[in-house]
């Protein structure tokens, strides 16, 4: 469990960086790509892309495969889903809380509307 927590922290840190999200987006778009082709489509240097890929690779979000002299990278969707899943759970908790707030507020509001009428009827 402790290992899983450490892994997830690294995962969060990896996707928290906007440039890395752009690298992920570009990889998802291309299916697979080399550091050089990714750098061509992004406003950062090849070295910067290589660093971002290394971070993403370390947390398992991307995997590289060597072909001759170049390494082709691709997204590992199952890891991306882990990150998405954790965020989705937080979102779902807020959906439940908001639904409860709605029920409470609407019942308070309904009581406030009925009360004056009841008062009038008893007068």
């Amino acid at each position, binding site marked *: 469990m402790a290992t899983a*927590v450490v892994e997830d922290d690294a995962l969060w840190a990896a996707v928290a960086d906007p440039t890395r999200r752009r690298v992920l987006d570009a990889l998802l778009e291309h299916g697979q790509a080399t550091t050089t082709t990714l750098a061509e489509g992004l406003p950062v240097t090849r070295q910067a892309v290589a660093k971002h890929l290394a971070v993403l690779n370390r947390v398992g979000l991307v995997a590289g495969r060597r072909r001759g002299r170049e390494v082709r990278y691709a997204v590992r969707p199952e890891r991306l889903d882990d990150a*998405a899943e954790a965020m989705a759970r937080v*979102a779902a908790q*807020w959906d439940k809380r*908001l639904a409860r707030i709605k029920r409470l507020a609407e019942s308070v509001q309904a009581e406030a509307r009925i009360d004056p009428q009841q008062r009038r009827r008893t007068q």
Partner: protein
Amino acid sequence: MAADSVERAILIEASPEVVWGVITEPEQISRWFSDEAEVEARASADGTLTWKPGGRGGEKQFDSIVPIRVVEAEPFRQFSFRWNHPEGAGPDENNSALVEFSLIEEANGTRLRVVESGIDAVTHDEESKARYLEDHEHGWEKHLGELLDYLASKSRGATR
């Protein structure tokens, strides 16, 4: 939107004044959020949210007490707080998550919007992570946030 933030909204058929009461009064908070709440809707006010065994916190053995500090309280419009910072420490952006409610009056009620950000700051220790990720009710997968919906659909596309 930051990678570690979620945004949700709902239309409520009640006035902003009524909705404000539900989201800020301790006796109401305990009906939708924690099992007990000590909170005051005033900027910089410190309080606590408590989840009890058998309550909304699920199968806990002990009370789970979570610190909360109000950041902004503008009646009927804005209510924000930081939470999940370590006990005794002041909350900041590295050790707590920020929850921001905004209330917008509409023709037939109030649109209530909530943004929680800095979630990765509070998922470092196992207990708070469990609190965030523990979800005893099913169906969460239907409610992907916008960003994650996007990421997930793209990743599914990449699998094919």
